[in-house]
């Protein structure tokens, strides 16, 4: 892993306006970067803006403000054909819903080859087909599956087809939007292990979105915790897990079941009430670096307290 930043997101905002007055701040001033070859986890409860962040990065939504830099180039706003191809083939997305993410009228072959076809990555049909078979093999499916339609597959298989589709363009980075949350628990490991192997073998960078810290801990190098459209804590996975600072992170951690029945029985959930900060005009939160590489979104006073606590541990 190098310090080369593959993706940089600066002060990204995405507001949805429904009607004239009400504005939904789905993503509000989010900044982070992802290093080449690492797995970056983005966690938070349902509706906190994770999907919106991912989709804005990959240009499905137009950002309200802020900038996105991919491979050293700004990719928010209008792009030339060439630049836009660099995004459409080098950044790919894996979707949450294995049923909705594959076109039911297309065969597996057509689905997997689509990205390659649109971006004209292969000179002829044969080489594209050859590559498609490699992709199928990579995700643990067989050649015979190529002529099938999505409805004949199980959820885990479909998700792997989705992964094959994302990989055929040989992307540098993959945004995986809760790729396992719609799957049966018994299948989750299958897909997660596959992603993990691919990351190691292909040197992929993954932006991994999840609502569950335990998965992210297993999977990510660094983690950003999101709440209400903002990043509240950002650090290496182990730091977030072992020394959480923000109350919201603590609350999320307390929701993880412990794989030991005797301890699990006594586990208490910590509830997070955003009102507890008591922020007002004179007491506004902002990002502070509490340890090297460990950022947290608190007010000045809270930050001082947290720092003392952390030092005491």
């Amino acid at each position, binding site marked *: 892993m190098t310090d080369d930043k593959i993706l940089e997101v600066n002060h990204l905002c995405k507001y949805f306006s429904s009607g004239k007055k009400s504005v939904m701040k789905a993503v509000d001033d989010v900044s982070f970067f992802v290093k080449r070859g690492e797995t970056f986890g983005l966690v938070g409860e349902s509706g906190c803006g994770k999907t919106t962040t991912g*989709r804005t990065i990959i240009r499905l939504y137009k950002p309200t403000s802020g900038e996105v830099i991919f491979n050293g180039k700004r990719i928010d706003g209008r792009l030339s054909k060439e630049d836009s191809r660099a995004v*459409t083939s080098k950044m790919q997305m894996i979707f949450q819903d294995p049923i909705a993410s594959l076109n039911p009228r297309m065969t597996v072959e057509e689905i997997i080859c689509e990205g390659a076809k649109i971006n004209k990555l292969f000179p002829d049909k044969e080489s594209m087909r050859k590559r498609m078979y490699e992709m199928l093999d990579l995700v643990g499916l067989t050649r015979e599956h190529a002529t*099938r339609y999505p409805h004949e597959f199980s959820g885990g298989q479909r998700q792997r087809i989705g992964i094959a589709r994302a990989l055929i363009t040989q992307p540098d980075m993959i945004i995986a939007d809760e790729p396992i949350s719609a799957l049966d628990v018994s299948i989750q490991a299958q897909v997660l292990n596959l992603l993990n192997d691919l990351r190691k073998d292909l040197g992929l960078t993954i932006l991994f979105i999840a609502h569950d810290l335990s998965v992210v801990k297993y999977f990510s190098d660094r983690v950003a915790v999101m709440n209400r459209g903002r990043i509240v804590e950002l650090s290496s996975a182990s730091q977030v897990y072992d020394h959480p600072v923000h109350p919201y992170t603590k609350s999320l951690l307390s929701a993880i079941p412990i794989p030991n029945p005797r301890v699990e029985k006594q586990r208490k959930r910590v509830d997070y009430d955003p009102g507890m900060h008591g922020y007002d005009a004179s007491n506004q939160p902002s990002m502070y670096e509490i340890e090297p590489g460990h950022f947290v979104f608190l007010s000045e006073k809270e930050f001082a307290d947290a720092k003392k606590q952390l030092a005491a541990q």
Partner: protein
Amino acid sequence: MSKKQKIEAAKKAFAEQEALRLQNLENAKTERLSEDDCTFVQMDEKLHDQKFEHEPISFYKDAWLRFKQNKASIVAAAIILVIVLMAIFAPVFSGTSYREQHTEFGVLPPRIPYLENLGIADGCRTMEIQKSVLDTYGDAVVEVIREYNQYYRGKPIPMVEAKVNQYILKGADDYYFFFGTDNLGRDLWVRLWRGTRISLIIGVCSVLINCFIGVVYGAVSGYYGGKVDMLMQRIIEILGGVPFLVMAILFVMFLGAGIRSFILVLIITGWIGMSRMIRAQFFRYKDYEYVLASRTMGASDRRLIFRHILPNAIGPIITQATFAVPSAIFSESFLSYLGLGIQAPEPSIGVLLAEGQGSLTTSPHLTLFPAIVVSLLMLSFNLFGNGLRDAFDPRARGSE
């Protein structure tokens, strides 16, 4: 409780819970299962899923398999096919044409070979005749049913009710008019199939054009959404507000009654339903994840519309079009019936019905046969459409 107190309370509660959590974590550390307790089952082999044994099933094959099971729709499809074939070929292969008049053979009842021997469609009609002139009918009288007296100004006039073969009576022994003739002696069999042909042409053409306009309009409106959609929907509302009958009458008055003006009348507002349906489909599917996936890979609008979104609407389009054919035919009949019909010698089902109703009591066959054909068409198209809908969208079974 003041705001400050509230905040303090929330903080305190959190701190208590947090302490418990740390306690638990400590517990977990002492009680944690060690890695030696677990072993890996398979690490080194690469696992592949098994291939499927059965045939790949495409969307259309799947729909066909389901459609086949619906007996009523199969029968309906067969009836439609027969009617269409008759409409195409029956006028070609009969000796007469739809406009050939034999005034001497006016209003003959149906006469069909073989069936006539059984007493059905034998060209006979029951007539009430003065007994004194019975002889002039000669051979034409097949059977005298009863005799009775009719009183005219108190005087009894002997009458007979007799079954009279009209063909012999009018010297048309050599002819077989399967469905009889109208008052100008034109062959109803030929006129009816010719009329069916015209009704079908009007129905199918208007529906095809409506589909095309509806799909394009709805697709643009639904795909781009926002202001474009707003504008396009307002236009539809204005168009939809114009009363159909008024517009139909104006069109027929200006363009003259003909196939073309009929199709035009049916098109002006006919596509609106289709475009609404397509628009709804676009709104529903344009944010589907597979459409987004394709978009992240740089797919063009054209590809998204035709490859990803529109195919979802093919089932509903076919179904809706099938339902639209009988209603177009019905509109045509209805306009013809009101006297806004196709120009004179040319028949259509509606024209035939309108002509026949004047003599409904004396020669019911003139109304009966067109009515049967139009009813069969309506029923069959609707059953066929139902079958298609169930086949394309099994979840919608039994709705409506």
